[in-house]
């Protein structure tokens, strides 16, 4: 990444305006053509610096439900429980985290709100382990600002 790439990422993390030519403003600010702006973004996506460029959707404003769930998985059962949890399509993200008790953290999203509870119940039944439900009660901030 060169300095223009970094400046582009810094600018574009905040989002573009929805309009006919959404990259025109960044192009002008950086003194490069719009074609070069999109080419640079495409290259950063291809190289893995950006996971994507596009809309960031908020599932719980789309009539659905999202929750964060945590489990205490005995280390010797980790692989087996990962498979059981990940088998649910509603589990969108799952991370192992180093914690003395709660070592597996995953996000469950579903369009039908009661589906989230059903998935947690199913995981409890399949694994015989408790699933701690930690839904967001209040959102104070969301948005990543990496200063590059």
């Amino acid at each position, binding site marked *: 990444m060169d300095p223009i790439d970094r400046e*582009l*990422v810094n600018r*574009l*993390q*905040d*989002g*573009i305006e*929805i*309009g*006919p*030519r*959404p*990259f*025109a403003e960044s192009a002008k600010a950086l003194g490069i053509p719009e*074609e070069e702006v*999109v*080419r640079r*973004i*495409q290259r950063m996506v291809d190289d*893995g*610096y*950006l996971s*994507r*460029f*596009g*809309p*960031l*959707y*908020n599932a719980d*404003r*789309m*009539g659905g439900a999202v929750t*964060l769930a945590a489990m205490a998985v005995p280390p010797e059962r980790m692989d087996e429980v*990962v498979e059981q949890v*990940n088998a649910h*399509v509603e589990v*969108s*993200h*799952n*991370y*192992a985290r*180093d*914690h003395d008790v*709660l070592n*597996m*953290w995953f996000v469950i*999203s579903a*369009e039908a709100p009661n589906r989230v509870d059903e998935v947690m119940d199913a995981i409890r039944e399949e694994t015989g382990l408790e699933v*701690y439900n*930690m839904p*967001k*009660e*209040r*959102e*104070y*901030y*969301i948005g*990543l600002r*990496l*200063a590059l």
Partner: protein
Amino acid sequence: MSGRPSPEGVTLDAVDRRIIAATQGGLPLVPEPFHQLAETLGLTAEEVMERLQRMQAAGAVRRIAAIPHHYALGFKANGMTVWDVPDDRVDVLGPQVGALDFVSHAYRRPRHPPRWPYNLFAMVHGRSRDEVEAQVAVIADLLGDANRGHQVLYSTRVLKKTGLRLRA
């Protein structure tokens, strides 16, 4: 138009769903992306832009932006910091923690005593664990005596990561 999200969000119709399905992986990277998207979907660019604007006003679209891959950008340490903050102070302090530039998400979540006493979650990102520890110290300073205990949980392995899925 105030642009404030309505509390109930938005009801999606079939056309909205097609737009979401077509953009979950990203926008076409051309100077006129909404026109190209419209062409792919057999819609007019005006309709695509109008629908995305409506979803954004309702909060279903947070923003249309570059989504950085922190790890590839050198932010190799990500910590989920969790804090036990008195219930009558957390809603004042939470937004202050969220305003710190290294915090990407800040939420209040329920405690599960005795195993889990923490109610304030803040995700932080640094280039190293040392940098994350320094960020944790900044949050601890900000919370002062409202910090009754905290921990940092580093992710050790991504076990699954998929995009949003919608009913067809």
